[in-house]
């Protein structure tokens, strides 16, 4: 029995370690499931192993790690969960013939035509229309932007602003904040509240996002929050003490709050394997990524030819059994980004109500 290895290079120590470990735990859950059954590819029996290396979020270390994974561990695919590392790896992954599973929502990851990259999270721009519509109808036309100031949140804000204005809304204040470096958000939040917005556009990592929401409420903000998809409503609720302070907000549906059978089953399995923890989309999407990669290997009949595996990735996602696909990823677009029929969550009456994104977009 031989071993197939899938690599991981992400932050496992330092400030971003939680994020890296979440991603890794999704991957490891998939690997455990795959290894629980006999795995046959091209007529040979295999065992799957996830090889994880720490890069402290440092792109040059990601480069080194991926080289190491390719050379010493012969991994045909590596998963990198941060844009800097992804860009650094894209400088050589085609030459080194390794499939890059890129967990970043930044469109640049696939726009540059790298032939061995798959972008794992679905394109965030699909959320913008429904979020705008729901919140404008519910609360009013004035929005204040107070999301984080890192690459992803800024890309979000940049796409959101014209959409909101196009829908007849007004941006009354704009004040991105350093969610993971600031000691306190009080001044920044009071600055945007002062503009009397109906809606507050926030988001970064879940926990600081929750603090921002909490402080906005303390400062008397009564409207709704548009929460970018990086923050998870369920995780935020733990920090602010329940869903009540988030009443009237919109964000992505947390996996653990999704009561369709597959996500619910996934949540149950994850909780069993990781007591006391809820799966977030970081976990569930990367879980599916590992399943899909192995499925693509089966379809391509190879465990080492990255190009052949890449060619089958779309099909692999399509044919993934629903229990391995809690986020309902339907395949890949032409550039290698995933396409999914995501559901969004609106907090109403102390509960998160789900709504299909596609349904909302088509109504428009």
């Amino acid at each position, binding site marked *: 029995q031989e071993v197939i290895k899938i690599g991981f290079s992400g932050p496992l*120590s*330092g*400030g971003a*370690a*939680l994020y*890296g*470990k979440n991603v890794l735990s999704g991957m490891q859950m998939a690997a455990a499931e795959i290894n629980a059954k006999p795995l046959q590819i091209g007529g040979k029996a295999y065992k799957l192993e996830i090889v994880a290396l720490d890069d402290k979020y440092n792109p040059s270390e990601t480069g080194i790690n991926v080289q190491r994974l390719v050379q010493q561990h012969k991994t045909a695919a590596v998963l990198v969960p941060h844009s800097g590392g992804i860009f650094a790896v894209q400088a050589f992954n085609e030459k080194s013939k390794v499939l890059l599973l890129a967990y970043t929502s930044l469109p640049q990851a696939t726009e540059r035509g790298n032939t061995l990259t798959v972008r794992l999270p679905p394109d965030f721009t699909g959320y913008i229309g429904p979020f705008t519509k729901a919140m404008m109808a519910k609360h009013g036309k004035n929005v204040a932007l107070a999301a984080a*100031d890192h690459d992803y949140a800024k890309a979000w804000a940049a796409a959101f602003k014209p959409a909101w204005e196009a829908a007849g809304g007004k941006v009354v204040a704009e*004040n*991105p*904040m*350093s969610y993971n*470096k*600031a*000691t*306190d958000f*009080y*001044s*920044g939040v*009071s*600055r945007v509240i*002062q503009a009397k917005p109906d809606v507050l556009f926030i988001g970064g*990592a*879940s*926990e*600081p996002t929750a*603090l921002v929401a909490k402080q906005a409420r*303390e*400062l*008397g903000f009564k409207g709704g929050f548009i929460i970018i998809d990086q923050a998870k409503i369920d995780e935020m609720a*733990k*920090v602010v003490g329940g869903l009540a302070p988030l009443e009237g907000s919109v964000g992505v549906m947390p996996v653990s709050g999704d009561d369709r059978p597959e996500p619910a089953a996934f949540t149950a399995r994850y909780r069993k394997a990781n007591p006391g923890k809820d799966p977030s989309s970081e976990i569930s999407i990367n879980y599916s990524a590992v399943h899909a990669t192995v499925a693509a290997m089966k379809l391509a009949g190879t465990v080492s030819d990255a190009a052949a595996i890449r060619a089958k990735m779309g099909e692999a996602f399509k044919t993934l059994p629903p229990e391995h696909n809690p986020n309902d990823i339907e395949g890949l677009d032409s550039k290698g980004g995933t396409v999914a029929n995501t559901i969004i969550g609106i907090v109403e009456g102390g509960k998160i109500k789900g709504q299909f994104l596609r349904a909302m977009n088509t109504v428009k």
Partner: protein
Amino acid sequence: MELFLQQVLNGLTLGGVYALVALGLTLVYGILHVPNFAHGAFYMAGAYSAFFLINRLGLNYWWGMLGAAVTVALISVLSERLVFHPLRKAPYLHHMIASIGILLFLEAGAQALWGADFHRMETPYTQLLTFGSLTLPAQRLLIIGAAFLLVVLLQLFLTKTITGATIVAMAQNREGAALVGIDANRVAMLTFAIAGALAGMAAVLYAPINLVYTSMGHLVITKAFVIIVLGGMGSVPGAIAGGLIIGFAEAFGAFYISTDYKDIIAFALLVLILSVRPQGLFARGAH
């Protein structure tokens, strides 16, 4: 006006916490000339110990704070004994690197023990007090009150008690202190203990309005260094003034200028002040 007062309150909150952290740093600096980069990790350790005592063992907030103060004082004293004491004759670069070693160890240790997750620390003071149109979360008032009480107690201790004077004496001449019968080791340990306890208490005061996580100390340590330089190394009133300056600069900067650039404000302030006054703001001749 109300918004202005809100920022004043905010500046006081931040300034109070910064001052507490900077005080420990400046004391240790004054005595052993140790630029203790691990001081931010002490702060982090304080938050984790209290988190553990309060959320896991179910103690109340004040017992949690006491526990954190004692734990961090212990960690701090251990660092002095095991690391800084053996290095007392080494140049300051060595202290710096050694303290980074301690920092790496404590952060990795906290992650190994409690994981990388963000944690919330509970406080009984969750009320929102309103004065006119001004809302004041009780915890923020508590921070301001407690920080300034601690500062006053410390200053009294250093200037009015003989034990306090021994700390100052040690800072000025270690050998001279030994020769009048002051036990240098005990004073060094005492200083580290006080510094640790202050950092621990600062963390427990502040954590309930923020989060508990392993790199939380990074936020305060660089600013604490800025503060002790501004205020003059080893000077207690300087650390308080410096803390308030940075606190207010951030609160008002974030509000009136830009949240985006508010961190630059603090550092640019230091660069500016040191360019004009190389000894810092409050240094009076030889110290």
